[in-house]
């Protein structure tokens, strides 16, 4: 089966820009989340999950990890960690929920909110550079071959951060399966892969398995 439009493989690469904000307490973290750039929210949430994809037990975002390790507040850390980036297609919404959780906690425990953390939290930002490669896929077989050779940053770009780019709760692969190959079941299966409990490599393996099953005729269009 040949797609209406090809899948364009992109090599993505990321720089970390050090911001000029830092936080030494929960209160300062809460204020920092209000004021920091969208690129900073992105770095500490979407990017953090990609950077730590090999941690599949309880690592979610930098804010939650800092609250746990530097402020020793496991309940609050758990609430922050429970924010699932797959639910967000806008950084403003994600920032709003982070602010709400931290704001509520600081209001409930004003003294604890001002306690000094073990380590400082430094706000950083992502700078993304994307480079379309010469590689395109017109068929499932070609996409599978490209996936096998894709670096982690590119996989992160196509599978994880695509939501913000597309403003859709999906990823580049699923979108292509559904839109250009009319393979909605394959798109759904790939979209359901849980990136919190998979590494990028195991997610890649599962996508390839789904593609193989689709090629073998297991999925209906």
């Amino acid at each position, binding site marked *: 089966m040949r797609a209406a439009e090809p899948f364009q493989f992109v*090599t993505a*690469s*990321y*720089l*970390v*820009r*050090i911001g*000029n904000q*830092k936080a030494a307490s929960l209160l300062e973290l809460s204020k920092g989340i209000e004021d920091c750039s969208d690129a900073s929210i992105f770095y500490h949430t979407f990017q953090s999950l990609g*950077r*730590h994809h*090999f*941690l599949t*037990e*309880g*690592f979610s975002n930098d804010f939650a*990890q800092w609250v746990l*390790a530097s402020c020793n507040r496991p309940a609050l850390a758990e609430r922050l960690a429970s924010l699932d980036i797959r639910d967000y297609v806008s950084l403003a919404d994600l920032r709003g929920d982070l602010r709400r959780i931290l704001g509520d906690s600081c209001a409930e425990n004003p003294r604890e909110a001002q306690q000094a953390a*073990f*380590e*400082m939290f*430094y706000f*950083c930002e992502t*700078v993304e*550079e994307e*480079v379309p*490669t010469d590689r395109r896929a017109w068929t499932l077989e070609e996409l599978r071959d490209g996936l096998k*050779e*894709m*670096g*982690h*940053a*590119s996989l992160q770009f196509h599978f994880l951060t695509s939501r913000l780019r597309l403003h859709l709760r999906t990823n580049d692969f699923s979108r292509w399966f559904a839109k250009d190959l009319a393979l909605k079941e394959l798109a759904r299966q790939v979209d359901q892969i849980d990136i919190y409990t998979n*590494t990028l490599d195991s997610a890649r393996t599962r996508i390839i398995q789904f593609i193989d099953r689709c090629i073998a005729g297991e999925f209906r269009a």
Partner: protein
Amino acid sequence: MSQTQTQAEARVNKLDDYAAVLGSGEIADLRALAARLAGRTVQMVNSTSVGGGVAEMLIRIVPLMCELNVCIRWDVITGGDDFFAITKAFHNALHGGRFDLPDESFKTFLAYTEQNRARMQFDADFTVIHDPQPAALIDARRNHAGHWIWRCHIDLSNPNERVWRFLAPYVSRYDAAIFSSPAFAQPLGIPQYLFYPSIDPLSEKNRELAPEFVSATLQRFGIDAARPILTQISRFDRLKDPVGVLRAYQSVKRYLDCQLVLAGGGAADDPEGEAVLAEVREAAGTDPDVHILDLPPWSALEINALQRASTIVIQKSLREGFGLTVTEALWKRKPVVASAVGGIPTQVIHKHTGLLAHSVEGTAYQIRFLLSNPAIAQRLGERGHEHVREHFLITSNVRRYLTLFLHFQNAA
């Protein structure tokens, strides 16, 4: 390891050699990024071609960039003994130490900078100036030509005010500055980027070793391969707290059988190192399970073997820059117990890629926990390896430079 050895092994390491540890996709990404920089020129400038971490890094990065068809040149500034005495004093002062030299030393520094500016050629698209010694070469930039980047490899979290006040106006004229930790960033008015230090997985200190060599190394130092080995690799320096490590080991030993290896160098040519070594030996007493090894600088393979033979690697520093010995241990899939100082928490994500501690007692507890839970220890080691593979290898450094150059190019 001697410089000659370093250069020799760096010469034989090709990009494709790294594919075995990184996967071909990562190497393909580097090639794709570099292709966008075709025809662009890069100049790296530092203060020495041999010895020191920056030279060792450039020795490895420059050939890889060349292989990626990036036209790169590496230049080294020159100066008399008086210049390097001043830059050494700058270095210590920027780390937070005193600066007692007269104001005249700033003039001497600038006079040597001017000599270097007149002697050297600056026409690259991207000029990367490493560390404070050549920082004032920004004067050589004409009409905002090219992109100039200052790469600071030292801990600037608490700089001596007098020296930083002198250097900051030069640094502020660059297009960007690069630091090894967010904690080192300064209010400069230019974009500041985070580039982690890195290790070379194919170097003698990090490459895979034959089990026979590891066994032979243990035998040579009288270490029992059949019993748990706790190791700290570090200079004999009070900031590495070797006596604290010994106290933690003694506490563990009350409950669990184990040996301690404290291996490092720096005692032969450093009076303080000699004193610290003596303190450690005295604290160890006659315990036959404590192995204190003062190793010469060319012991990369032996250090590699000791790390690989270890059950747990410790880094109980009181202060730390980044802690590349931690990176090396994590790369070798070792469970690490380390202090939460400097760049260590970036590498040791508590309970994910290792365990952090804040005291002798805490260190002892975490060691006991790992000795009693080998499956958890193994899992931490595996994740630590992945963490290093993603972020702290020499190829990641190449990628960051390429991305930064590309970022400038696209912005222009």
